[in-house]
């Protein structure tokens, strides 16, 4: 049985507000229960079935699948009668882009290869260290036992709220009655006292449990340990008491646990001489705040490695201040070298940080090719002293000791959901499960290594964050060096969409690339939040669709931070009265030409300038200007 109908809201037995109020679940509500949808529509009397249904009642027989893991959707369910079984599949395949055959995908990959090796570095499902996209392949080596659902239980809330593919497959264990609802109805329930608390509780439990199962670090836990972990963990959002101004923790704050990012994007930044520097931005599924798994003194774990003359100059650990020069008394003597002063430069430790200071050398000291007087050092920096080139390298990490203070500031770039696991919980888990501690340490090292980047890469990160590209999964870029501005892409788009182009060949630039005003298929789409009729959603793939029942309120267009949703004035219907009518509007968005083989804009570009890519994987340091 299909759970959603795509043309006319939800299909099923409609329930009026009064009928809903008769359901046991809603009787306990402390506040009057209201359904925003019908009041917003304002077109149907209370007891008359509306043209667009926001909440429906469904009947299932034993064995019927109510919802299936991996499916896209925008509804939540409430089990009214009977029971069901929820199970996490052993493997979930990544979502596909509609309208693209395997052949087209291969061709597109070939296209990327010619442009940048970065494009092939990682496929959609081949992800960064620690990161698990909600659209990635998920394999559970140790799938959890199915969970029994009883009358009054909610499920599918995550899909309804975050528009991620469904995590669980839910099957009817006996004949049952289920209420299926759109976001607007769920929001009303969440606002309504007791009902809201039950929804919140169900959501938090399900969200944390699923996220733990998704992550490598927690896969070795037994069912009992997992239950205990869920009960001890905390789901944080921007509105939580523990979060101040979207900041989870500040640099220098006491380390009190680790964090697992469930939804949204988190920025890790560090104070530098020139202001805050973004070290990295983290996507869904990333574990962070792992300082207690890292060495106590980061600065002491760096070393100076001579890359130009490795045989002549031994590497040196940067624990205290060292001097580099021609004199024998220097800690790093470069005897008989041309262009090196007697005392050329010094690397000083100041607190947790290392600084490079030129000591008035004749030929100067270079950092990454630039003359410096005094500068903060980071891993990967290249220091030039005469003919010698040194690199700052990290040394292997001993996970037994960790710093007590945060090394970075973690703040949300937009709305987020983060699971916090306290240090005490970690220690307990480490005692009962030794493999857990080893996995945690290796994850910590991998994440730490991933965020140690040279200065050149830093510019790339800054630019990606600046243009909000971290959240984009599929962006239309135009190579401006190739583009002749013939607008064939726009024409093709308009032709494929009844004469109305779904994007504008305009927008910010990233080097030579134009980041067009076309839907980016955000991993965390803001546009879908708050649609009163649930007409903007994902169907069975990553593309965002606006269904025909859009009422033209413009909320999605306002919510899109990039202005990629346009409101189109519909052709005026024949006027029944002589009075001028207000125009009817409908939201439009790029649907990646679902139904066609590949996006028409890319296919129709004769100059090979238009490309659809995941920008954070495609763009490279060379593209930053």
């Amino acid at each position, binding site marked *: 049985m299909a759970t959603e109908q795509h043309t006319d809201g939800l299909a099923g037995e409609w329930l009026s507000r009064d009928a809903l109020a008769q359901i046991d679940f809603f009787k306990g509500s402390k506040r009057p229960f209201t359904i925003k949808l019908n009041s917003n529509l304002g077109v149907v009397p209370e007891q008359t079935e509306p043209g667009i249904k926001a909440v429906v009642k469904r009947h299932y027989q034993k064995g019927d699948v109510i919802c299936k893991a991996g499916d896209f959707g925008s509804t939540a369910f409430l089990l009214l009668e009977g029971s069901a079984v929820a199970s996490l599949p052993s493997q979930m395949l990544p979502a596909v882009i509609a309208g693209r055959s395997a052949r087209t995908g291969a061709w597109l990959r070939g296209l990327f290869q*010619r442009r940048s090796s970065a494009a092939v570095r990682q496929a959609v499902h081949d992800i960064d260290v620690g990161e698990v996209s909600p659209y990635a392949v998920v394999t559970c080596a140790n799938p959890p036992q199915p969970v029994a659902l009883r009358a009054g239980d909610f499920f599918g809330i995550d899909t309804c709220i975050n528009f991620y593919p469904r995590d669980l497959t839910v099957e009817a264990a006996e004949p049952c009655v289920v209420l299926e609802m759109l976001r607007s109805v769920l929001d009303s329930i969440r606002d309504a006292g007791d009902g809201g608390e039950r929804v919140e509780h169900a959501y938090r439990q399900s969200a944390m449990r699923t996220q733990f199962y998704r992550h490598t670090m927690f896969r070795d836990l037994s069912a009992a340990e997992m239950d205990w972990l869920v009960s001890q963990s905390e789901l944080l959002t921007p509105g939580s008491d523990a979060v101040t101004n979207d900041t989870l923790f500040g640099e220098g704050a006491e380390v009190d646990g680790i964090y697992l990012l469930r939804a949204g994007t988190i920025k890790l930044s560090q104070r530098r001489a020139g202001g805050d520097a973004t070290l990295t931005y983290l996507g869904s599924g990333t574990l962070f705040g792992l300082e207690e798994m890292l060495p106590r003194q980061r600065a002491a774990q760096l070393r100076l490695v001579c890359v130009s003359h490795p045989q002549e100059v031994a590497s040196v650990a940067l624990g205290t201040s060292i001097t580099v020069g021609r004199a024998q008394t220097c800690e790093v003597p470069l005897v008989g070298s041309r262009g090196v002063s007697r005392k050329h430069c010094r690397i000083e430790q100041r607190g947790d940080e290392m600084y490079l200071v030129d000591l008035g050398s004749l030929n100067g000291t270079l950092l990454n090719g630039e003359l410096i007087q005094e500068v903060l050092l980071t891993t990967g920096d290249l220091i030039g002293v005469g003919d010698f080139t040194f690199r700052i390298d990290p040394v292997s990490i001993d996970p037994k000791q960790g710093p007590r203070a945060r090394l970075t500031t973690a703040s949300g770039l937009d709305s987020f959901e983060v699971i916090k696991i306290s240090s005490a919980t970690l220690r307990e888990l480490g005692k009962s499960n030794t493999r857990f501690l080893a996995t945690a340490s290796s994850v910590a090292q991998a994440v730490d290594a991933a965020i140690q980047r040279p200065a050149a890469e830093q510019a790339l990160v800054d630019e990606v964050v600046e243009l909000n590209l971290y959240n984009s999964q599929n962006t239309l870029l135009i190579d*401006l*060096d*190739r*583009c*002749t*501005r*013939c*607008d*064939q892409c*726009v*024409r*093709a788009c308009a*032709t*494929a969409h009844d004469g109305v182009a779904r994007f*504008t*060949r*305009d927008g910010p*630039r990233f080097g*030579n690339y134009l980041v067009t005003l076309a839907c980016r298929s955000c991993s965390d789409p803001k546009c879908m939040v708050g649609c009163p009729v649930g007409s903007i959603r994902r169907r069975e793939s990553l593309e965002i669709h606006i269904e025909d029942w859009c009422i*033209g*309120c*413009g*909320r999605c*267009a*306002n919510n899109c931070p990039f202005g990629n949703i346009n*409101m189109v004035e519909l052709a005026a219907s024949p006027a029944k009265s002589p009075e001028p009518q*207000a*125009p009817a*509007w409908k939201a439009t968005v790029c649907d990646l030409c679902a139904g*066609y*083989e*590949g996006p*028409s804009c*890319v*296919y*129709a*570009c*004769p*100059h*090979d300038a238009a490309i659809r890519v995941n920008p954070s994987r495609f763009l490279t340091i060379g593209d930053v200007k």
Partner: protein
Amino acid sequence: MLLTSDHTRWAVATSLAAVVAAAAYTVYATSTPYGPSGGSWPGLCFGIAGTACMLSAVFLSARKKFLLWRIGSAQRWMKLHVWLGLLAIPLILFHAGFSLGGPLTTWLMVMFAIVSLSGIYGLAVQQVIPRVMTLRVPMETPRSQIDHLSASLIVDAYEQVASVTGHLPEAAGEQAALAEEEKRNALRPGDWKQVRRLIPAMSPAEGSDTLRNFYLDTIRPYLHRKAFKPGVPPDFARLRFDAPGEWRAPVDRLAEICEESRQLAVQARLHSWLHSWLLMHAPLSFALLVLVAVHVYMALHY
């Protein structure tokens, strides 16, 4: 189309075909006692091959009419157009035996030369101008929006000035445009694309005559200048020096507006260079095909 390493295979194949054709032509021309002729079998072969290349190249314009047909990506069609178009040049010359012939064939050759040269010119400008435009016009906008955007800039400039000086009777056009914009905004759903305009000052700020005069004498005429003429944007140095601190934002914005206007004019000019050759290339290509058809008919009939 930018010629990159992607074109290597096409370039090699085209060059090989041209070399083979040249070798065949050399053998044929040296072995024919009366010299090469388009009517001979080898000459006809060159003619048929050259015409086929021309026809293949012309198919690109047909491909552009059917944007949604999945009959090979437009990039491949463009490569076909460029390289077969280039290959047609030696083939047609071999067909003609490097002579013009009668009046019809002379016209044919002249037109073929114009079409080929304009195509090569177009290819050449496509290697340069997009890069120049990217570099020189950071505030680029779609070409079709330039007129609209230029008109918006005129209104934006007035908005900035009026926020200091109050409404200016000399700028009636700008005031009417603002009123029209307000009407349009009222019809839009919710807050979508609502522009929050600055409120005009109730009375002119002290010393605002400087700004008023500069706007009316310099900025406004510059923004109203003839399209496609970048001109020299107003020099704001003196105004910035004279203006009190609270005018800094509007003055900076006015300078930005003038710069954007200048860049739009540069873009329009570059755009016309980038595309004007097509006005000759495309229609003459079709005229050439008609003449080729006449030439074929005449050759076969007589």
